Each structure stands twice: as C-alpha cells, then as structure tokens.
C-alpha cells in the first residue's frame, strides 16, 4: 500500500530552491527523513501535510492531492517542529480541542486515550505554559494522534527531550507503527532514528541524496573515507609506515602536520598505534577532520 507519493516534487521560494525534484513513495512503517538543518525536511513534510503546494510535481496522500484539501486531515496528522502550543490551555483542553475539531463522536474518551498513550495523564490539567519541552512534545503528539490517523508526520519530535523521554516516545511511535500506520519522522541526527526507522530518506540541500534501509544508510555513512591529521615526533617516517596498510590511500605532509586518508577508520585506529610503537615514534595528536554532519551529508551527495 502506498500512502504518500511524491512525483518530481519541487518547491522554491523566490529563487531559493528548498526541495528539488524529489520522487519517492512511502508506505506503512516508520520512515526517517534525515538531513542537516535547512535541507528542506520541513518543506517536504509540510508539502506532504498539504500546508504547502509544490511549485512543480505532485504530492499525493492516499491518491489525492494534499494541498488545499482539508478532508485529508481526517486520516493525516502533523506534529509541527515549532514548540509553540496554545500555552494558556491545559494539556487536556488542547487535546480535546483537536478531538472536537476532528468532529469525533466521543471527544472526551478519545482525549483520555491519547493522553494515556503519551503518559501525560498526571499533568493533563496543568496549563501547557508550565510544561517542559519534552512534555510539550508529548502533548502535541497526543493532539495529533487523537483521531487515530493513518498517516502521521512528525517534524523533529525528539528535540528537547531527555533520553528517558526519547525512549518512551520511541516506544509510543513503535506501538503506533505496529498497527500498520504510516509514520514519517524528520531528524538531523542519524542516531535518533536508530532502532526506530526501517527506511531512511537522506535530504541534502533540497535533494534526495540517498534512500534505503536504515542499516544501509548507516553503513554508507560510517564506511566512507575518513581523514585524520596527526602530529608526531617523526611525521615522514610515520607516513611511510602507514602507507603499508591497505586501508590507507593517501598521505600528505605539510607544516609539521601529517594528513592521512583511509577507507576504513576502524582498521587505521588499530594499525596506527602499533606502527608508531614499532617505529619508536611518539604521537602527539590525532584529529579526525570531517566528522561534522555536513561533511557526512556532503559525502553522500558527491558519492
């Protein structure tokens, strides 16, 4: 079953392209949309939620165009990234408002069920203004789940949550996904999607840079070439010794700094100390140079 279908979808603001020619189909289970900030994840999610119409291409939810079609929201829910909720309402009032706007037959029962699901029953009668970031996220999720939507879009749902809250939210989402629903989660942290998302779409600068099973994406990201800079007592000697290792495919010497490029980070970290010791070289500093998320994504794009 295909719940969401993107066909050559693009979206631009003036001459800035936020989403560039993305085509994919999403079905039941949890799909992660991964990418650095500003990659177009929110724009993509908002197009799926019908809040934005694509500048080119199509976005179909259950076969219908999402934009300008409020009936879509009977089966679709969005948990927005922005923290702001109607802070003057209590948690229960906020969720019940969602239930009533959905036109549910028994809004009170649905409200109680949704609040129970995110474990907010104890705090439900406090004003949202007194909630922590994590509690606000949970009440937002309760408001979105109140009408049992088949498609749930969550924009950076783990922001501001402590590890325990994060684990709990993962449990909630896994439980909801097990009911055969379509869940799409955006995140800029790969590890957040660990053990959660089966499929991952990687967005970089508005383009779909990679997509596949979580484990494949993870392998792509960790098995890429790594670059280290090393300071030691004898850089030249160390360089020649390191070149004997099959995983090292480049060394460079300048200004008392040795730059090593390896295709296998693990192998180098085992090989380097042994080599240095055997050659009687003292290591002063080892520094990975490209561990920033942006460079990881950069690699995926240029691959």
């Amino acid at each position, binding site marked *: 079953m295909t719940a969401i279908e993107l066909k050559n979808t693009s979206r631009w603001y003036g001459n800035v392209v936020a989403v560039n020619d993305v085509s994919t189909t999403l079905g039941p289970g949890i799909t992660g949309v991964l990418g650095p900030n500003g990659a177009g994840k929110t*724009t993509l999610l908002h197009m799926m939620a019908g*809040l934005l119409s694509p500048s080119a291409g199509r976005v179909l939810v259950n076969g219908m165009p999402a934009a300008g079609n409020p009936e879509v929201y009977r089966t679709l829910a969005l948990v927005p990234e922005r923290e702001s909720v109607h802070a003057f309402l209590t948690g229960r009032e906020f969720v019940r*408002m969602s239930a009533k706007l959905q036109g549910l037959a028994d809004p009170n029962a649905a409200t109680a069920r949704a609040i129970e699901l995110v474990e907010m029953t104890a705090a439900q009668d406090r004003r949202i203004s007194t909630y922590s970031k994590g509690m606000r996220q949970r009440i937002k999720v309760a408001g979105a789940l109140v009408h049992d939507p088949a498609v749930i879009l969550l924009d950076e749902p783990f922001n501001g949550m402590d590890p325990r809250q994060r684990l709990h939210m993962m449990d909630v989402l896994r439980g909801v996904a097990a009911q055969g629903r379509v869940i799409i989660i955006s995140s800029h942290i790969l590890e957040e999607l660990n053990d959660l998302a089966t499929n991952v779409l990687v967005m970089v600068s508005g383009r779909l840079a990679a997509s596949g099973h979580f484990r494949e994406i993870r392998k792509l990201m960790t098995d890429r070439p790594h670059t280290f800079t090393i300071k030691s007592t004898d850089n030249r000697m160390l360089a020649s010794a390191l070149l004997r290792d099959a995983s090292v495919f480049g060394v460079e010497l300048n200004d008392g700094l040795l730059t090593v490029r390896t295709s296998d980070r693990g192998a180098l970290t085992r090989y380097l100390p042994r080599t240095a010791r055997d050659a009687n070289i003292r290591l002063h500093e080892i520094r990975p140079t490209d561990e920033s998320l942006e460079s990881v994504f950069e690699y995926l794009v240029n691959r």
Partner: protein
Amino acid sequence: MHRTIVWLTWRQIFANRRLYLAMLFSLAPVVIALLFRSFSADPEKESRGFYLLLAPDIVLGVLLPLSALVFGTTAFGGEIDDGTLLYLLVKPVKRWRIVISKYVVAVLSTFLLMLPAIFLPWLAVSAPDLPISIPVAYVWGAALGAILYGAFFTMLGAAVKHPLVIGLMYIVIIEEALARSIAGVKALSIREFATAFSLRMADSSLNLGTPLVSASNMKVMGTLFLVGSLALALYRLARYEMAEKP
C-alpha cells in the same frame, strides 16, 4: 462558524492582558459622568448636553475603535506569529469557518464592552430629558461599529505584520484627522458610520442631530468594508504557508 474555534478564541482573548486594559477603558465614561455630576452647577439642565457629547464622541468615537482594535487584532493576532495557527489549519475544518468564528468573537466582545460604556454613564447622569431611547440609539451605532471595525481589524490581524500599528494609523489619520475636516473622507470612516447610524435609528423627536453620512453611502461603503475585509482575511488564510525560511 465552529464552536470549538469560538471557544479557543475566547480563551485567547481572556489569556491576553489587553482585555483587562480594555475593560478598564470601558469604565472610563461612567467615571467621567460621576465627575460631571459632582462638579456640575446644575446637573438637571446640563445632563443632556453632557451625555450627547460623551456618547458619540468618547464612547463611539474613542472607546469603540480602540476596543475593536484590541479584540479584532487578538482574534488571529499571535497565532500567526507564533505558529499555533497550524493546529487549526491541519484539521478537517474549512478555512472560511475559521475566519468567521474569529470574526464573530471579535464583534461580540467589542459589542459587549460597549454596553456598560453606554448605559452606566446614562444611569449616572439620569435626567428627565434623557429617555432610555437615547442610549439605545447609541447601542445601535455601537453594534454597526463593532460589525464593521471587527471585520476590518480581524482582517488586519490576519493580513499584516503589525496590525496594531496599522489599525491605530487608520483610527488616528483617516478617522481623527481627515474624516473630521474633509467631508469626502467621512465615507471611509467607520466611526462616522456608527454615529450616523445612531442618529438614524433615533426617533426624530429626540433631536439628536442630523447624520453626516448618507444612507446610500453607508450601505455601499459598509458592505464594501465588511465583505472586502472578510474576503481578504480568508484569502490570506487560504494562502497561508508555514515553512522553514530558507
């Protein structure tokens, strides 16, 4: 209209401190009236003249536009800036129902605030030549004013970035400065409509004065204000797009 959105908008207005400021303002006329009573040399004789100045100039002329501004701009107000409007937009509710619900709350709260502002000073200065039909005539004016101002300021709240500033500019420049001196501009002033409507609704035996805006002018311009403002608010909401700014 949608009951839940009406409820939410009420809660929004009550959560806003401006409401209490507006309530305080609505008590200003009765305070002025009490001061008048205690300082006037001959309240019996001067009451009518005083009230016929207070009701159109202070209540309809100042309080009505200011309260409509407060309620009209809070109806959408913060929701667009802080993004909470999103929670209404991702529900199976047609957008015109959102606009109408917000608008109705703005009109009703403005109108309700006008009632004590019109009747309390009338009670305070009660005089035999001030029958109840006089404040009732001003209530009609306040009702029309609330309906038109409400639409205009609700639209500003949805459509412009600083609705309070633009709204104040309208009140001060168009209504206060220009409409008072230039006859043609009166057709652009909701305040003039409200006053003229009061005079039209009053029995001619009350001798409140002659309306300065013609009935046909009021019909055309009033409809234009109402329909134009609500259509613009709806257009703005229909085109409302939330996204990360690139």
